[in-house]
């Protein structure tokens, strides 16, 4: 079974530039998550999708971050404009979903973003 795919794996940008990350979840997984993991900290949930609808985006900095999940499969997370404090690993995860919030999540390898 293929895992969660993410690209790119690494990205270096200047502050105030824009960047986008892509995620392809495990086939059949209805729920998709984006997390931000700053060095030395645990993952912080940014946004959760159930199919193509947003379930939770309470911790997403909406003035600069946006995410979409068209057709309920792939997802993109965008930062515009980036700040120094956005340097982190951005993790995508998926789970079976279906309204069961106890399903385990499967994580992708992450995208390491460095903002200079």
């Amino acid at each position: 079974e293929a895992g969660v795919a993410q690209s790119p794996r690494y990205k270096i940008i200047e502050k105030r530039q824009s960047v986008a990350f892509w995620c392809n979840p495990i086939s059949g997984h209805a729920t998709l998550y984006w997390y931000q993991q700053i060095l030395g900290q645990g993952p912080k949930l940014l946004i959760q999708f159930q199919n193509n609808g947003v379930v939770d985006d309470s911790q997403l900095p909406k003035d600069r971050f946006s995410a979409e999940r068209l057709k309920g499969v792939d997802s993109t997370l965008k930062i515009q404009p980036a700040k120094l404090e956005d340097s982190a690993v951005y993790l995508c995860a998926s789970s079976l979903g279906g309204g069961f919030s106890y399903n385990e999540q499967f994580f992708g390898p992450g995208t390491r973003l460095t903002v200079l």
Partner: protein
Amino acid sequence: AQSVAQPEDQVNVAEGNPLTVKCTYSVSGNPYLFWYVQYPNRGLQFLLKYITGDNLVKGSYGFEAEFNKSQTSFHLKKPSALVSDSALYFCAVRDSSGNDMRFGAGTRLTVKP
């Protein structure tokens, strides 16, 4: 909002000895509790979860965790540590009605030969 505390940044044990990685939580309502492991240069992997029922939960690679409602704890344990268990361990919680997954800061486990 729920929260998770992992009071130890680092745990060191000798190979063959039992290990415990501590986790306490705060949540309204009934908790769903999880342990994930992050090996170097690899993504987070699910180890085990507590949903309901037996307080002792068994998971992958010989790990288990004990849910203690009165102490709001969910400590990860293994009877005999292996060098290959060395990794970063994260505890996570969400409540039974919500979609707000919260992770702890992580505990780095080092098992020495």
